[in-house]
């Protein structure tokens, strides 16, 4: 390469896969370049024609087509094309056309082969297509995490210890002591089968038997827990962890279909992963006042950063953070009830939005509500519930969960209502949908009962699942709202930047990335009548209905994971550098690898929005501002 061509080399060195290429090799590449200009609208590669070049876009934009003529991708500055033809028989597989006036650097097949054989990074890059490229980027990251890759069966150290559920209290305690276990499985004979019926733990014996001074002859089935939360034996440890976090249980029977293979305890996971957020959760329940909670809330960010550094995926981190938030809320409710006395009528405390979706991060405000029993009488009871809601809300604020700016909190009387009023709210939202009203009530369609009579929340989920899928107008409105926020990617695959609070050009990964994705996933999930709240679980539910193709679902999952994990890492870096984490990312803060994959991911969001518009007929009319 002539030294005077350094400008050209420097351009290529900004883009993958050339960015990681040794200098001498890149010099060699540059020395073989041919430059060609294509006017907008002209064909660059025609299907089936011989091709002996790899194409690099120096400036402009190019459209890549499938052989059917369908648009496959739009690519821009710094991106390459033509590699698939070179990998297979030197014939053009994906025709290409200049979308704008485009300047191409192309280099010959021999150089392509040389790079392919000598530079692994280059070979990896050109071998996989864009969406599968995203997928391989994700799978590379996940390899290093043991929680993600080890099965729960690894934690089972002994045969399950069980007894018939007909045994008496004292007998059960004796078996547990003899066997040295903290939980006893209770079985029931049923037509020759022995089925798992319930479980009793150390804590249950303490709180339900000893504290209540029950006679030792009490049948164990009177105090055992039924409707057990269990986990499949092929689940990963992190799934067990999420299940425990979500349900606030400390023991999980591991099942091989109907057979119990063993029991894993929270302490097993904590031992396995001593820094895990489960440890923080168990600590939350040991705090005796708001000050204690406030003190340990400082560990939440450490726990977050640790999980990021351990390469946990976004689902895991989002669930762990939601689990922690839920635990703070639950403990505050316990403390509130201790202070104010038992509730005058049953109630359910409900989490909304990201906590309900198990997609919470560290920068989060509190979104919650109360469903009261229908016997609720405002004059007699509301003073109590207002005081309780205020205690919890203030406590959460102390612990770093800022007040909701939209006043979606149980302290707001509108969101502290008996079940029949709530049913009326949801029925009205669904059956008489108004775009603007829905924009504000969107958050209620991610709901989860976290304390008290959680059945109330389940009733609402059932109502939503049944009614939403039948109201085309509701789905159309919801879809239209889901199109309000578009991914920050321009027509030519450049990032569309906005000014953030500090006058820096950036894009908001929440507002323009994860939020539009969870919005559009919610629409499909409601259309399917799914009760799932978490976006990944919603995608799974959608997958069972054939509403979306498997490929599209996979792309959505990968895009959500990638955008979320970039957002998470961005926040973790800020915390480690002592800055306040936010969602505004500047392109220069990203590695070329992240930039490239983010563009892929945003493209997926953009395509998914187009489909949403079409599927729910949401293109007509105006979006509310």
């Amino acid at each position, binding site marked *: 390469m*002539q030294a*005077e061509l350094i400008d050209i080399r420097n351009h290529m060195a900004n883009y993958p896969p050339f960015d990681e290429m040794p200098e001498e090799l890149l010099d060699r590449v540059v020395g*073989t370049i*041919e*430059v060609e200009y*294509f006017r*907008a609208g002209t064909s660059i590669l025609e299907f089936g024609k011989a091709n002996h070049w790899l194409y690099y876009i120096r400036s402009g934009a190019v459209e890549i087509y499938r052989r059917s003529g369908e648009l496959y991708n739009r690519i821009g500055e710094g991106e390459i094309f033509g590699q698939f033809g070179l990998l297979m028989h030197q014939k053009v597989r994906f025709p290409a056309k200049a979308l*704008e006036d485009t*300047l191409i650097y192309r280099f010959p097949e021999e150089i392509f082969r040389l790079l392919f054989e000598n530079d692994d990074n280059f070979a990896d890059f050109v071998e996989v297509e864009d969406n599968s490229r995203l997928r391989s980027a994700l799978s590379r990251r996940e390899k290093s995490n043991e929680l993600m890759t080890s099965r729960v069966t690894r934690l089972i150290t002994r045969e399950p210890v069980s007894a018939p559920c007909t045994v008496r209290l004292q007998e059960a305690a004796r078996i547990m002591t003899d066997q040295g276990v903290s939980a006893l499985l209770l079985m029931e004979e049923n037509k020759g089968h022995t089925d798992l019926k319930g479980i009793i733990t150390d804590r249950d014996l303490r709180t339900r038997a000893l504290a209540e001074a029950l006679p030792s002859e009490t049948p164990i089935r009177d105090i055992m827990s039924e409707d057990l939360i269990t986990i499949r034996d092929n689940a990963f440890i992190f799934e067990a962890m999420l299940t425990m976090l979500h349900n606030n249980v400390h023991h999980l029977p591991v099942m091989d279909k109907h057979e119990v293979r063993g029991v894993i305890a929270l302490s097993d996971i904590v031992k396995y992963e001593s820094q895990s957020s489960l440890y923080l959760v168990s600590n939350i329940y040991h705090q005796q006042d708001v000050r204690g909670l406030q003190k340990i809330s400082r560990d939440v960010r450490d726990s977050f950063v640790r999980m990021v550094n351990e390469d946990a995926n976004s689902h895991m981190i989002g669930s762990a953070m939601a689990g922690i938030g839920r635990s703070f809320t639950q403990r505050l409710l316990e403390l509130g009830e201790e202070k104010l006395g038992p509730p005058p009528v049953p109630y359910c405390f409900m989490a909304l939005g990201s906590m309900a979706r198990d997609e919470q991060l560290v920068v989060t405000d509190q979104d919650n509500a109360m469903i009261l029993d229908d016997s609720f009488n405002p004059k007699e009871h509301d003073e109590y519930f207002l005081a309780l809601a205020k205690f919890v809300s203030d406590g959460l604020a102390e612990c770093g969960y800022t007040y909701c700016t939209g006043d979606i909190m149980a302290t707001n009387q509108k969101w502290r209502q008996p079940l029949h009023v709530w049913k009326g709210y949801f029925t009205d939202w669904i059956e008489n949908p108004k775009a603007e009203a829905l924009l504000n009530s969107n958050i209620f369609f991610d709901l989860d009962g976290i304390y008290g009579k959680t059945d109330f929340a389940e009733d609402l989920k059932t109502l939503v699942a049944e009614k939403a899928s039948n109201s085309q107008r509701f789905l159309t409105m919801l879809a239209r709202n889901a199109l309000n926020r578009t991914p920050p990617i321009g027509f030519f695959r450049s990032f569309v930047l906005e000014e953030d609070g500090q006058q820096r050009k950036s894009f908001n990964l929440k507002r323009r990335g994860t939020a539009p994705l969870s919005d559009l996933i919610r629409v499909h999930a409601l259309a399917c009548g799914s009760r799932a709240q978490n976006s990944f679980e919603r995608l799974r539910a959608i997958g069972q209905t054939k509403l979306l193709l498997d490929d599209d679902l996979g792309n959505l999952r990968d895009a959500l994971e990638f955008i979320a994990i970039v957002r998470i890492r961005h926040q973790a870096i800020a915390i480690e550098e002592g800055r306040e984490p936010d969602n505004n990312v500047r392109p220069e803060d990203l590695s070329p690898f992240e930039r490239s994959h983010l563009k892929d991911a945003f493209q997926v969001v953009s395509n998914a929005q187009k489909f949403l518009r079409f599927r729910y007929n949401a293109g007509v009319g105006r979006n509310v501002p």
Partner: protein
Amino acid sequence: MPRNSFASATMRGWGAMSHKAAVVSTQTPDWSERFDALAREAQHPLLKEYYAAGCIAPDTPISEVPMVAMDFETTGLNPDQHSIVSVGLVPFTLKGIQLSAARHWVVRPRLPLHQTSIEIHGITHADIAKAPDLEDILDPMFELLRGRVPVVHYRSIERGFLDVALRWRLGEGIEFPVLDTMAIEAHLHPNRRPTRWQQFWGEKPVSIRLADSRIRYGLPHYAAHNALIDAIATAELLQAQIYHHFGPEAPVRDLWL
């Protein structure tokens, strides 16, 4: 900075040509015939060989014409007073600019180097002290020029300076056709200076400088300026001009000067 103390393709076209230029002036010779005659007349073997290689037929479609983009950095604008300090050449066709065959030389000027040219070209006294005389690079230069139509941005520089430099060194000058990307821009924008009335309405003068012309075709900005990058930039600009205004079938006769 005094405008006449340096010259490079990057700076040319900034008011340098105030007269209207047609792409083809009536005086343009039939270069094929002219080369045959020059091959007979030339004395120096290098020039004789150059002309004998011939010039492509005037009717040849531009898509079939072998070309070479040429750019000189000079110490000034006047060939009789200033010298060439560097030469960039890159052979190309409408379908491709071959960087593998691109060449760049720094040569020792006959006249002292002005401080201002140092600032523009980044070529220093130390570079030049070690540099060969233009005479020493004539063989590889003509290797690339032979059989190809030169493409330049503002022909007075490359034509004038090469002619004078060869007169000094070989005892005879040189004639050759050029495709001048600046002349093409001048032709496309005959009224580059807006009238006062147009200025009032915010119209800006059209610049036919290399970098400004490139912007009109969506061509990228090159940060560095040296004779080779400018030659490549000129070749890219010609490709763009052909595709936008003339088409690959246009005979070279319509475009050369």
